């Protein structure tokens, strides 16, 4: 949560801060492994899981399936967790997932003003901006301003629903399916689904963007 | 609330090394620019510092309180029109144009804060102490005044009503503490010695006669 608006402050702050933090982490890891509280190999598996395996491509597959399969879409919107488990994703920070659907009249946006709650199983770990003060502070009282930061402008009369994840419920936005994708396979449709479009700070790509 | 980050906590209160030298340089740069552009007269700066470092301070307020303890007519004026009352003693002006006196009684204790910045009755108390301008005081006084009083070593009876006044406009508040017992016949000067600065903010009580021995 360092002060982003003070870029110089942010960077010089980081260099001295960073090396100090690196040393602290190394010291901690040594202490904890020497005491036997932590198995270093387990650490590597944790890191591998969230750096390489679990990420927004999971959520993109869920969205693409909802676009292509109306019955699945119905199940997903009715009860997110089991529907997402059908596609193989579940668990930590996704034990209670609620899918919220964008329509021409309503746009959904997800935030955690209190910390960084985010649906890990379908989107992986949250980006820095999602956990930083500018987003957490403004998403709830100036969502159109936040969308402008992402270069997105919605019609004035579109209802904007902001979901503040204050409990263990995790929200997944189902963006509107772009026009001109009739007959596309789920794999191809998934390529249109961006991470931001599943948070609500962006829209799905259009077919033209894939050329 | 764990306070193991005490040093960090302090860090945010007072300047630490780098902040100090940085501030010295930035202030010097500003003064040079403003001076050479003709916006300021350096002698005026020295005068300002001298007035608030040496001349205007809590002794002014102590004089007002002592007089209010002794002179019922002045006391009445003080609570009806604080600005006029302190004006009659030669105090007023900056941060004292709209002064309101608050009377402590056996059943009501007053405390003054400015949660939004550092508003303070300069005219009668001089410049505010660091703690008055710091986050712990500004944040807690409106919600937990008894906790703040404990930080000052002051414990009031449970049923005493505590009135906290948040200076959100240009009104400036002066707490008039209760006169200590055993001071019958004392002169205003002697009484003024019992009046501490904190007792005029509401975070302390006046000294007792024995404290002066």
């Amino acid at each position, binding site marked *: *949560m360092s002060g982003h608006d003070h870029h110089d402050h942010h960077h010089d702050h980081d260099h001295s801060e960073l090396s100090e933090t690196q040393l602290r982490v190394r010291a901690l*890891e040594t202490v904890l492994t020497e005491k036997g509280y932590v198995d270093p190999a387990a650490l590597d598996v944790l890191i591998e899981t969230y750096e390489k395996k679990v990420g927004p491509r999971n959520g993109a597959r869920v969205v693409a399936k909802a676009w292509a399969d109306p019955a699945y879409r119905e199940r997903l919107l009715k009860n997110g967790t089991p529907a997402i488990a059908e596609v193989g994703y579940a668990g930590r920070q996704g034990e209670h997932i609620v899918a919220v659907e964008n329509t021409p009249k309503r746009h959904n946006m997800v935030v955690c003003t209190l910390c960084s709650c985010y649906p890990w199983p379908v989107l992986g770990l949250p980006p820095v901006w999602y956990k930083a003060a500018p987003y957490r502070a403004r998403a709830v009282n100036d969502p159109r301003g936040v969308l402008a930061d992402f270069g997105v402008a919605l019609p004035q009369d579109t209802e904007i629903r902001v979901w503040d994840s204050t409990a263990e419920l995790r929200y997944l936005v189902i963006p509107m399916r772009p026009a001109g994708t009739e007959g596309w396979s789920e794999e191809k449709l998934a390529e249109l689904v961006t991470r931001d479009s599943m948070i609500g700070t962006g829209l799905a790509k259009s077919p033209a963007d894939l050329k | 609330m764990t306070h193991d980050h005490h040093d960090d906590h302090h860090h945010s209160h007072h300047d630490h090394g780098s902040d100090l030298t940085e501030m010295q340089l930035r202030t010097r740069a500003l003064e040079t620019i403003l001076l050479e552009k003709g916006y300021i007269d350096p002698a005026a700066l020295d005068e300002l510092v001298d007035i608030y470092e040496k001349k205007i301070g809590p002794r002014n307020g102590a004089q007002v309180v002592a007089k209010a303890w002794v002179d019922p007519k002045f006391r009445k004026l003080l609570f009806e029109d604080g600005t006029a009352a302190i004006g009659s003693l030669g105090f007023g002006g900056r941060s004292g144009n709209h002064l309101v006196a608050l009377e402590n009684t056996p059943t009501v204790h007053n405390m003054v804060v400015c949660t939004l910045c550092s508003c303070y009755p300069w005219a009668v108390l001089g410049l505010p102490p660091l703690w008055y301008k710091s986050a712990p005081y500004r944040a807690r006084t409106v919600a937990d005044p008894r906790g703040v009083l404990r930080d000052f070593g002051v414990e009031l009876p449970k049923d005493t009503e505590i009135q906290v006044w948040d200076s959100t406009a240009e009104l400036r508040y002066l707490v008039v503490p209760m006169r200590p017992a055993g001071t019958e016949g004392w002169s205003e000067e002697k009484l003024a010695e019992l009046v501490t600065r904190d007792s005029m903010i509401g975070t302390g009580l006046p000294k007792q006669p024995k404290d002066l021995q």
Partner: protein
Amino acid sequence: MNGAHDMGGMHGFGPVEPEPNEPVFHGEWEKRAFALTLAMGMPGGWNIDMSRFARENRPPGDYLSMTYYQIWLAGLIDLMKERGLVSDDEIAAGHSLRPAKPVKRVLSPADVAQTLHRGGPTARETNSKAAFAAGDKVRAKVINPLTHTRLPRYVRGRVGVIESVRGCHVFPDSNSQGLGEDPRWLYTVKFDGRELWGADTDPTLSVSIDAWEPYLVRA
């Protein structure tokens, strides 16, 4: 706790600055800090609500100038010190200086996939009846506990509508203080933007939170 973390509706933080092709971790130490925090949950024996309170329970000036994983690290250290798992001199020395306290279990590599998959569901069975139903008008209570709560300041005292009943869930305000899970009915409550931010707010805005029954009174 009314800490700096409760920042919904704050001003002055500047624009959101998305980082193009941002890596998952910004440096080796972030990977280790992340993994250490997750791994220590098992031997540490604290729950997620205790872990969140440990992060938010620090001076606002510090919270706002620490990066995300620096806050994780600080929270982890506080949790471990509180339980005597490590001490300041060991952290300073960068080595264990005395035998470990006995712990129930240590996370093994084989456990990782399974524990991640299981996660930590907070839904609990109950035979109590929900006090509210979808459509009910409710007011979020004005509470200002010094301890952990998930009721953000910007909705306290405001009136909203129950949008859905989410079942009974572990109650963080109790669980974070070690007072048991104390499961309570959980509701999604929808607030009109003007009710939260004043009459001249964008009329198309509404904000919802998930709120436990003890946070709500009928309006």
